[in-house]
């Protein structure tokens, strides 16, 4: 299951190595003629009057907190979106003739990378069994949840709470930058 992340792990290693090589090239391969003016922070030619470790506007901090709340809550909506949408692409736009091929195509892309391609069976004419419902439809048909609409109501309540938090932030004035 997690093997599909192996290339990503390798990619990260590769990129960190490349970054290290770039830094190394910069370190070894060029002249170095320091002088005291170069060593100053560049602030448009003015002599800097203190370093940059000063206090910052607190709104940046509040913004980060607000971002954290909103972003995490948006992330929590993703599993719901996938579960609600999976298997229903064929219901959406069912009038398009090309979606006839969709179920087999989608299920065949689920396999591991580099698999052998199974011999093409042009099974448009012959009766192919209906694939079992997946995602939220599957959960409904298995009796795990009552109905899709109940879940939708739950999601809407969640988004409503998000909106309440948003209005609170607005009223508190932390979104205000002028």
């Amino acid at each position, binding site marked *: 299951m997690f093997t599909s992340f192996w290339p990503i792990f390798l990619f990260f290693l590769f990129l960190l190595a490349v970054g290290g090589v770039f830094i190394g090239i*910069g370190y070894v391969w060029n002249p170095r003629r320091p002088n005291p003016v170069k060593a100053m922070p560049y602030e448009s030619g003015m002599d800097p009057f203190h370093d940059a470790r000063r206090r910052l506007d607190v709104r940046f901090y509040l913004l980060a907190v607000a971002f954290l709340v909103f972003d995490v809550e948006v992330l929590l909506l993703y599993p719901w979106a996938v579960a609600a949408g999976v298997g229903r692409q064929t219901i959406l736009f069912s009038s398009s003739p090309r979606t006839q091929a969709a179920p087999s195509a989608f299920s065949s892309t689920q396999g591991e990378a580099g698999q052998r391609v199974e011999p093409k069976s042009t099974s448009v004419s012959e009766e192919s069994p209906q694939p079992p419902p997946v995602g939220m439809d599957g959960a409904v048909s298995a009796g795990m949840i009552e109905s*899709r609409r109940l879940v939708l109501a739950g999601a*809407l309540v969640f988004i409503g709470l998000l909106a309440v938090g948003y209005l609170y932030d607005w009223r508190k004035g932390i979104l*205000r930058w002028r």
Partner: protein
Amino acid sequence: MDLLTTLEAGVKMVILFGGLMGAAAYLVLVERWVAAWIQDRLGPNRAGIPLTKIRLFGLGQPIADGGKFIFKEEFTPGHVEKVLYFLAPVVSLTAAVAVFAVVPFGEVEIFGYRLRLAVAPGVDVGLLYLVAVSGLGVLGVLLGGWASNNKYSLFGGIRSAAQLLSYEIPLGLALLGIVLAAGSLRLEEIVLWQAQTGLWNIFWQPLGFSLFFLAAFAEAGRLPFDMAEAEQELVGGYHTEYSGMKLMMYMVAEYLHMILASFLLVLVFFGGWHFWGLSGGEPAVAWPTALLRVLILLGKVLVVIWFFMVARWSWPRFRFDQIMHLAWYVLIPIGLVYVVGAAVLAEYGPDWAARLGLSLPLFMAAANWTIFLVVWVAAACLVPAHYDNRPLRGPIRPQAPAPETIP
């Protein structure tokens, strides 16, 4: 995790990395040409083959620039935090390139072997990975700005971080609507779905498209939104104190953000490698069609990049407060409305379409366009004018009550 997968991934990632670096280098040249064309002057057209008189329309310019980056003095000022100062560009570049691991270029069938043209083709949470890792780019910017110990760098980094954070929320909300409709987080399937219906998402998701477009534009940090390095205000922003290869890594990372935004726009909203009548809807095809698909994809990406470049030379930079207001007062509420609308339509759309006697695509498109227009007009009417340039009268919070009690 076997040897074959590892080898395949290794070859793909070297090709991808090389391609991206080359693309970034040459797109800089293209951008300078576009700038020259817009400003009615000659762009870079001198650099060609060295030691000859051959100019090649300036095609040697990126190579000369690269050489300059390598051989220039790379000065490390004495006042920086050494470790973070060296780490920050690496983080930035890694995050910017690693995102492309899940970007699919299609699928090709060679000798009965199905080769997927993506570094990590089997990842089920592609979009989520993409949003997460592109969020890591903030770290590089912030670290670089802070480690430089320079007030311009610090403000560049902080402002850029605030901007990137703010626009990540509308970005996530816009993608949420698409995920609801497509039922998958895999970019391959989103593209395949558009290819099979022949109806690109932009045609029936205008609100999601505009949200995503604005947010992606801001995430790329291109000119109307380039808080990170507003030259007239902050010198170079977070890379004021960087030079040589480290500066190059930041530049490339920035360019890759734009390329990524273009790729995402094309894959999610413009049908990816699909074009009517040219590429079919099958997942895997023989190599001529696969090549055609890659060319179509890259062509679309180039068009979007060209738009980014023209936009850069067409609009003045927004002010920081305008950018923040656009994100928090406009895009996030619209995003919430959009997600609610998408969820309700995905659930009740078929029923309503049947009741009205319309075909489903027609109904969905009409409903979404209606939502789009209503929301846009409402936002234009309701939201306080953030293009107001008058100074704010009075204290920051005019009707602030007596001392705040924050528990």
